[in-house]
């Protein structure tokens, strides 16, 4: 980088701790020669500096504000091992496609390392209070986005992680070798408990594994939570008896207070539900509390990511969903909505691949094309089952399995309940299409190209599938993604 640079870190202590304001670089938050320890937490920020602020100084400022610094020099630093506690910005790279010669203001990827002792064990709240605390409102940067993090094994080991995980969930449900199938009850607001349970029963009997409360179904005037839980469990048990299969419904226990959450979760447990659900908006601490409750009580914990798009979607400011996925695997959820690629909600294929790998793999290697900047070993934390939901339908089955694999819950809400022959038929259509596609894949067929033909053949023996394909055959959501990866492929030497 050929930009004017402010003088580097001041090593002379008397000079360094003279009262007044000095650039963050001089205070010691920029250390290009620093080599991160294996136990460091590393954060990768996308920084858009204010006009006239050079990138290293902006990176140093972010390091400072997310660790020990304040706006002016304080002598009390000298009462601490401040060199160790300072976060260190150690690398700044220009973001491809920004800055000189483009129409986009210059952006930089800044690597910042934090000493392990800066963070309380097992606390997402503490980790995030530093990393995404004051710093996101900091005037020296126009915009700031947390793109990725490397969580050291030493810190991961202080987290419980998913209470159940993919492997144990499948063993409890006795369902292997295919994606699980779900649907969200619609309309999401207004149904009475009895009518709501009807939708659950029909969908489960027709072939779904799970039905789901929506994020904003809690305990409203039209349906209080106890009534919903009782009718839903009648539906779940009836469907299990009718099919000989384990069935479930995500009972949303989201509520105003932690006491209410526990009360609802306890009741779900008492009724024999295999799973409960929470919304991301309850906050990191409440999520961790529910994760511990779920582990203690043998319950699967489903997380609906309500609210995330307010800060994950725009590329220049906020927190990427990759990072949210890492935090949620640490906090300990078993299911998380993670994108569909093909549905109605945001989802670039590369970004989604990075998120799914983060949730499901035992070790996620760095992969810039997928937005993963660091090798991330998962230290035995269980695998989170991603959930694909939002505007997907049976005609996309081959694309969904190709993009998302088989360890995923595919949720066809409208695609089940809106079926012209009824809810049971809608569920059956989805299940037949799913099993036919898995069978074909396992037989070695090229489902990406032969998918439509495989569905057509399966529909010959299944009228509901034929009706579903006829109804939704032309529906797709082809909009440009907002959150994409900025990455230039560099040729590797042969």
């Amino acid at each position, binding site marked *: 980088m050929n930009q004017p640079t402010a003088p580097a870190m001041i090593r002379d202590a008397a000079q360094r701790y003279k009262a007044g304001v000095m650039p963050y670089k001089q205070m010691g938050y920029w250390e290009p020669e620093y080599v991160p320890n294996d136990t460091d937490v590393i954060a990768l920020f996308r920084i858009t500096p204010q006009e006239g602020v050079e990138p290293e100084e902006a990176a140093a400022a972010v390091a400072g504000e997310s660790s020990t610094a304040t706006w002016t020099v304080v002598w009390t630093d000298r009462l601490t091992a401040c060199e160790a506690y300072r976060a260190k910005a150690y690398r700044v790279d220009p973001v491809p496609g920004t800055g000189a010669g483009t129409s986009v203001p210059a952006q930089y990827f800044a690597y910042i390392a934090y000493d392990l002792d800066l963070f309380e064990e097992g606390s997402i709240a503490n980790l995030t209070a530093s990393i995404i605390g004051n710093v996101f409102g900091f005037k020296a940067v126009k915009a700031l986005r947390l793109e990725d993090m490397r969580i050291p094994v030493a810190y991961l080991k202080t987290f419980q992680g998913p209470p159940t995980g993919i*492997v144990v969930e*499948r*063993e409890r449900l*006795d369902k*292997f*070798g*295919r994606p699980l199938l779900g649907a969200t009850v619609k309309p999401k607001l207004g149904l009475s408990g009895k009518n709501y349970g009807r939708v659950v029963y029909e969908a489960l009997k027709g*072939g779904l594994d799970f039905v789901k409360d929506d994020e904003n179904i809690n305990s409203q005037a039209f349906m209080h939570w*106890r009534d919903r839980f*009782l009718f839903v*469990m*009648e539906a779940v*048990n*009836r469907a*299990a*008896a*009718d*099919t*000989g*299969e*384990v069935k479930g419904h995500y009972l949303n226990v989201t509520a105003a207070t932690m006491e209410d959450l526990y009360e609802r979760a306890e009741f779900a447990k*008492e*009724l*024999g539900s295999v799973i409960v659900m929470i919304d991301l908006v309850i906050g990191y601490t409440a999520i961790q509390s529910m994760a511990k409750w779920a582990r203690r009580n043998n319950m699967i914990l489903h997380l609906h990511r309500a609210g995330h798009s307010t800060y994950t979607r725009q590329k220049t400011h906020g927190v990427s969903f990759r990072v949210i996925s890492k935090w949620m695997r640490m906090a300990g959820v078993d299911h998380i909505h993670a994108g569909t690629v093909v549905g109605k909600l945001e989802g670039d294929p590369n970004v989604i691949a990075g998120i799914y790998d983060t949730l499901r793999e*035992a070790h996620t290697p760095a992969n810039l094309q997928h937005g993963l900047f660091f090798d991330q070993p998962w230290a035995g934390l269980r*695998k989170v089952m991603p959930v694909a939901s939002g505007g997907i339908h049976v005609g996309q089955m081959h694309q969904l399995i190709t993009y998302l694999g088989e360890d995923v819950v595919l949720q066809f809400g409208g695609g089940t309940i809106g079926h012209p022959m009824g809810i049971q038929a809608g569920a*059956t259509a989805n*299940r*037949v299409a799913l*099993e*036919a596609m*898995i*069978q074909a894949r*396992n*037989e*070695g067929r090229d489902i990406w190209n032969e998918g439509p033909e495989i569905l057509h053949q*399966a529909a010959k*023996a299944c009228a509901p599938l034929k009706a579903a394909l006829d109804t939704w055959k032309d529906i797709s959501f082809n909009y440009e993604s907002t959150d994409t990866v900025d990455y230039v492929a560099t040729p590797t030497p042969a």
Partner: protein
Amino acid sequence: MRMTQGTFSFLPDLTDKQVRAQVEYALDRGWAVSVEHTADPHPRNVYWEMWGQPMFDLRDAAGVVQEIKACKAAFPAHFVKVNAFDSTRGWETIRLSFIVQRPAQEPAFALERQEAEGRTIRYTIGRAV
């Protein structure tokens, strides 16, 4: 009723050729195939009877198909399923499990309800009589 446990229960019963193709898929991934049977397909009955041990050392689909046939012949009135076990670290579980034989007359289940306080109902899934 048609019991719908297993990966392919919503499809027409698999032919021998189709079963063999799935076995080959499992063996290609290094998974160990096993065969289990039961007269009690209750959804919470996780321990079906084992037809011998998982075939850890059998890498030939024809051999596996022989064992499936033998189990079906020995228990013509039972459900028979084929499991594929993955011993890879982090999985160490079944990765594929599908029904290959059903009794001519499948048992039905009934739901028993015991009313408890606060409108709560305790459910038991039992065999229909």
